């Protein structure tokens, strides 16, 4: 075959494998959702995952939340004071946090902390034949490994986002009001007047979508670590983990834009 023919064959093969991969990923989600109603019981394992995804992320979320709020307070005060409208600081800080930064930064932090760990854990189970062992015990690996993580993610992401928002708003208060001297009454009043339920909904819808995306991508990458290459080695797990973090982060940002443009 000539070289251009070869190229077309390769391109076709690549395209097909990508499409098959997407199909497999879709089926993976369906199996995981389907697994919610299958035995074994999920209460205990879900609680364990809530502890891991939620509780163990708390420190990181509080820390990043505080500094995001503080930098918003700083930047907001500096910009607004140019127009003499420091009174809008509360509205600016809270709206940016609740609509955008809260859900996005929370999701990115949890992806980095828990998503990578979830992917590595499941990937190791794959290469050590533990997933095969589950199958041969007639325990559905989707139901046993994936579904509880989905429940835990869907519970944790909105809660972590709320915590991030609240701490961020106090961070903005600390810098804008306590340090730079904006009016405290105007700060809280601005929040009260400007933040509506639709802003809060938007934040939560984002948090839920990001939860599904992060858990889906992380578990999928781990579950199929090394399956396509057939090598089943440690490097497959590390590659899967890197992929999981990168793809989750990118899709969080893309989904953020899409949701914002739909809901606005």
């Amino acid at each position, binding site marked *: 075959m000539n070289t251009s023919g070869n190229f077309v064959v390769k391109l076709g093969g690549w395209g097909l494998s990508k499409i098959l991969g997407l199909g497999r990923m879709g089926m993976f989600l369906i199996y995981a959702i389907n697994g919610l109603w299958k035995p*074994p019981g999920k209460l205990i394992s879900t609680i364990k995952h809530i502890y891991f995804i939620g509780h163990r992320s708390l420190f990181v979320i509080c820390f990043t939340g505080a500094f995001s709020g503080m930098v918003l307070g700083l930047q907001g005060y500096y910009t607004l004071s140019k127009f003499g409208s420091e009174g809008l600081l509360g509205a600016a800080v809270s709206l940016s946090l609740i609509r955008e930064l809260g859900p996005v930064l929370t999701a990115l932090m949890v992806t980095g902390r828990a998503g990578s760990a979830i992917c590595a854990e499941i990937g190791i189970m794959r290469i*050590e*034949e*533990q997933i095969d*062992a589950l*199958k*041969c*015990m*007639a325990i559905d690996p989707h139901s046993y490994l994936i579904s509880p993580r989905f429940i835990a993610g869907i519970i944790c992401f909105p809660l972590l986002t709320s915590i991030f928002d609240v701490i961020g708003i106090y961070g903005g208060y600390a810098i804008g009001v306590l340090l730079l001297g904006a009016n405290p009454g105007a700060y809280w009043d601005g929040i009260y007047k400007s933040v509506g339920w639709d802003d809060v909904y938007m934040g939560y819808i984002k948090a839920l979508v990001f939860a599904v995306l992060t858990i889906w991508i992380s578990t999928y990458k781990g579950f199929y670590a090394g399956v396509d290459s*057939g090598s089943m080695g440690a490097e497959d797990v590390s590659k899967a983990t890197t992929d999981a973090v990168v793809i989750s982060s990118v899709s969080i940002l893309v989904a953020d834009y899409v949701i914002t443009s739909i809901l606005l």
Partner: protein
Amino acid sequence: MTSEATSIISVRDLQSFYGRRQVLFDISFDVPPHCIFVIMGVSGSGKTTLFRHLIGLKPTRKNAVFIKGEDISEWKSSDWQKYWQSIGVLFQSGALFNSMTLKENVALPLQVHTELTSDIIDVMVEMKLYMVGLSGFSDYMPAQLSGGMKKRAGLARALAMDPELLFVDEPSSGLDPITAAGLDDLLISLKDAFGMTVIVVTHELESAFKIGDYMLVMDKGRILACGTPESVKNSKESRVRQFLERRAEEAGQDMEAYLQRLCSVRSR
């Protein structure tokens, strides 16, 4: 050997591929019930691949593998669930869940598939661990066990549901001769006392001839010999003799020449 009708597993002209590379060629054999069936062969001859076909982890073409007379390629997921509940599998690596203690590993299938109370499950788990010589280790994590202990723990887990068909991939690799002999005795008593059918992959000749009722010798993805231990022992096939007499590949002499060459290079 028995016919397709009475055998518990029948394999007919099984071919197997990884990508485009064929690793099993025209494999056919029958496993009669209540026996120990040993699969032997040098490393890389395709034993684990054959094993994975039999336990349903590698998709099989039509009319290649029959279990109790049913073509497994036509099984639906409910048939697989039923089959998987009736077998026990020990993987070559042990495949213990490393976030759980030994006790939890062995208890898992019981917790999922039975309604037993936790007291009874505890007793059963203790019993299985005792059978493989690991009583007293029930609270250890897999990472705290030696390689041979992981193997035995994997066997305890495979036995948890008292399966009628037991698949074990190299149970005694990594074990000392005494523990390995104990494991052989365990497999024999499982067959005799519980009527289990046991399919064992091994390269230990001695243990294979001790426990095997039937054996299959594989080489490079093909069957070299298949039948009772006597018939395999008396086989005239040169590769079988070579395998049984543990001779290295023809290269024996070349090896010596190679070593001499190496030494002469160093002494120069």
